[in-house]
């Protein structure tokens, strides 16, 4: 193709300008590739840590105005995160999906620890069914000391190593498996709740940062107590027929209507009479049967679903989590309780959001720099076109259509992008491999959280390489837009004017 041949030749003929533009493009690719690779490394490390250890791929929470982290932190509210009222419906919905690998209900909040009347410290707690938890996060928790609790055991607590160290720092005698400790929390409606629990073991999180390493696991019922929710430790409530009838016909709105109207005694007597009639009728039929039999027939076990604040979801490998989020959000809208469906980034909180924000800010910065680069490149290319007036005029005179001239300029830019891109990516690759060997040490706790450890070991990101190249190609083609217009305006008559 003649346009490509001419473009290639021109790059060689105008070496200095080609070198200048090539260096700008190469530096751009290098910075983009390195920057995005570092951010991708940090973000993928955070994603791996949170998804595999704390949040799952996505989560459903009780109704909140703002996103809530899995530690129960939410902007704009100090109150305990509400529970998911119709969690069963979500569980059924998720069970019907082929892209869902597993789910885990969870409670979360901040509690204080003490022994006797001495408060020793506070920390974050997850209230869980331990077997479900270990199945959902099979690789993240290691038992350092003691035993795993059994399903029906309780109340129990698995202290994390930092929490154990905190307690031992102030405790009069060593805390360990078997020690009874006091856990207390300020629940919404119940005021301060205090529970005594037995330390069942000491755990360690394999992937964590300073905040996550201190999480303590506690049995779900104790956590419900501490958060002010009804626990099911003693099973579901058993109601008498009268209570069941009352609950079945109970209208909360009626409590606030006709407050000053005298109640109709016949109505209350009527209900009581109905129940009495039922009992008598039953008694008549149950002649010769014991009291237990009578109770079995007349008492009702309340259909109560355990209270959970979170339902964590893991998707199957290769499944699209964002699609599931979208479908779940639509389902949640249909339920109408205002529950929130959010991704792992919202669940992870500040650190992950910061990493995402840094990437956004970096790309924004790149966009601003790109505008400046486009201006510089555009100027150089316009000068280059103006220096080739006679050449382009001659091409037009001897029969080159405008598209040949346009393609020639576009090929020049594309070749430069390819060469400079390859050079920039190669240098970036070498730098990343070197940095990968020596690592980047976090200068402070913030970066430590961001890096997911004290040292960030950058990885080569293919996505970053492709993004960088596409950016530069777009910048190059953008920069050649105006010079191409200038070139296309050159009339063939220019060739006749002489060099």
């Amino acid at each position, binding site marked *: 193709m*003649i346009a490509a041949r*001419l473009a290639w030749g021109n790059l060689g003929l105008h070496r200095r300008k080609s070198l200048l533009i090539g260096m700008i493009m190469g530096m751009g690719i290098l910075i983009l590739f390195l920057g995005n690779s570092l951010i991708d490394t940090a973000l993928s490390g955070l994603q791996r840590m949170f998804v595999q250890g704390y949040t799952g791929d996505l989560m459903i929470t009780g109704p909140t105005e703002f996103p809530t982290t899995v530690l129960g932190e939410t902007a704009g509210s100090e109150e305990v995160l509400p529970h998911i009222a119709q969690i069963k419906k979500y569980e059924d919905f998720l069970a019907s999906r082929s892209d869902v690998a597993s789910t885990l209900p969870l409670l979360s909040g901040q509690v204080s620890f003490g022994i006797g009347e001495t408060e020793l410290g506070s920390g974050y707690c997850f209230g869980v069914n331990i077997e479900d938890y270990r199945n959902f996060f099979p690789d993240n928790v290691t038992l350092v000391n003691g035993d795993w609790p059994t399903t029906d055991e309780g109340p129990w607590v698995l202290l994390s190593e930092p929490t154990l160290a905190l307690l031992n720092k102030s405790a009069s005698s060593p805390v360990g498996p078997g020690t009874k400790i006091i856990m207390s929390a300020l629940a919404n409606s119940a005021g301060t709740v205090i529970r005594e629990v037995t330390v069942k073991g000491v755990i360690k999180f394999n992937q964590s940062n300073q905040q996550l390493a201190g999480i303590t696991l506690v049995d779900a019922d104790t956590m419900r107590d501490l958060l002010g929710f009804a626990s099911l430790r003693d099973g579901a409530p058993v109601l008498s027929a009268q209570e069941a009838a009352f609950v079945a016909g109970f209208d909360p709105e009626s409590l606030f209507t006709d407050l000053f109207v005298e109640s109709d005694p016949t109505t209350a007597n009527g209900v009581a009479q109905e129940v009495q009639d039922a009992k008598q009728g039953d008694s008549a039929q149950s002649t010769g049967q014991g009291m237990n039999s009578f109770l079995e027939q007349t008492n009702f076990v309340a259909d109560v679903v355990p209270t959970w604040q979170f339902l964590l979801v893991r998707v199957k490998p290769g499944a699209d989590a964002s699609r599931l989020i979208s479908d779940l959000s639509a389902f949640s809208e249909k339920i109408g309780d205002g529950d929130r469906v959010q991704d792992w980034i919202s669940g992870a909180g500040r650190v992950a959001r910061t990493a995402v924000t840094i990437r956004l800010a970096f790309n924004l910065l790149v966009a601003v720099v790109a505008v400046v680069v486009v201006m510089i490149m555009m100027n150089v290319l316009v000068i280059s076109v103006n220096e080739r007036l006679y050449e382009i005029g*001659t091409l037009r005179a*001897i*029969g080159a*259509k405008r598209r040949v001239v346009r393609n020639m300029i576009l090929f020049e830019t594309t070749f430069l992008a390819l060469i400079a891109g390859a050079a920039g990516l190669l240098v970036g690759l070498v730098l990343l491999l070197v940095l990968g060997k020596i690592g980047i040490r976090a200068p402070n706790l913030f970066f430590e959280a961001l890096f997911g450890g004290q040292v960030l070991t950058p990885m080569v990101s293919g996505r970053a390489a492709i993004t960088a190249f596409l950016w530069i190609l777009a910048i190059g083609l953008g920069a050649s837009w105006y010079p191409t217009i200038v070139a296309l305006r050159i009339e063939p008559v220019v060739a006749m004017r002489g060099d």
Partner: protein
Amino acid sequence: MSDIIISLDKVRKVYFLDTVEVEALKDISLDIHAGDFVSIAGPSGSGKTTILNLIGCVDKPTSGTVIVHGKRTSDLDDDSLTELRHRSIGFIFQSFNLIPVLNIRENVELPLLLDGRSGSEHKADRKDWVDYLIESVGLKDRMLHKPAELSGGQRQRVAIARALVMKPAIVLADEPTANLDSATGESILRLMRHMNETLGTTFIFSTHDPDIVEEADHLIRLRDGRIVEDRRIHGKTSIDFAVARGTNEAVDATETEGGQP
């Protein structure tokens, strides 16, 4: 008499330089016959290059009609004019205007490459034809050199080969010897004449060199944008078109065939 390949009728060309109007051509009418070796002579600023621009379809007249190879140029859009230039007209420029990044062979071949025909049968024909032209202009051993490595005369020979590569009906040469010494200029003129006779291509060249003017079959002399002499040498008798048309200044003209060098 051969067919008329180019016809200008009452052509005016006005350039606007800021607020000043410059009338480069004033009611020019002329006909050029296929296969002629035509010289457009005149001093600087007389309108020679303007006429070539109009005939070469790189410019349009302010008024009047220009017909090239049967096509009225004012009726054609940019693509059609480009196509007409590409197929029917070859250009030889005063400053050679070779493409510096291409070697001699590529420069000669360039108009063919712009054609977009890439079939293997065309490729073979194309190669033979390009080789023949390069050999004809005496640059066979310089085929892979870049223009910057050639002398002025050699570059103009390349330009002649390039102008002929599409086998055009017309070749326009704007002062082709102006940048060359007299000996080289003469050899270039002889080459053009040779090609004109061998291929039957119409050559139209502008010059202000009186010696070169005498080479022509058809002489058009300009002054201040008007034709002052329009003389076609046919056999032993020249025809004074200006007198015949009655629009331009009549010139007494008698020429013999033996007048040619």
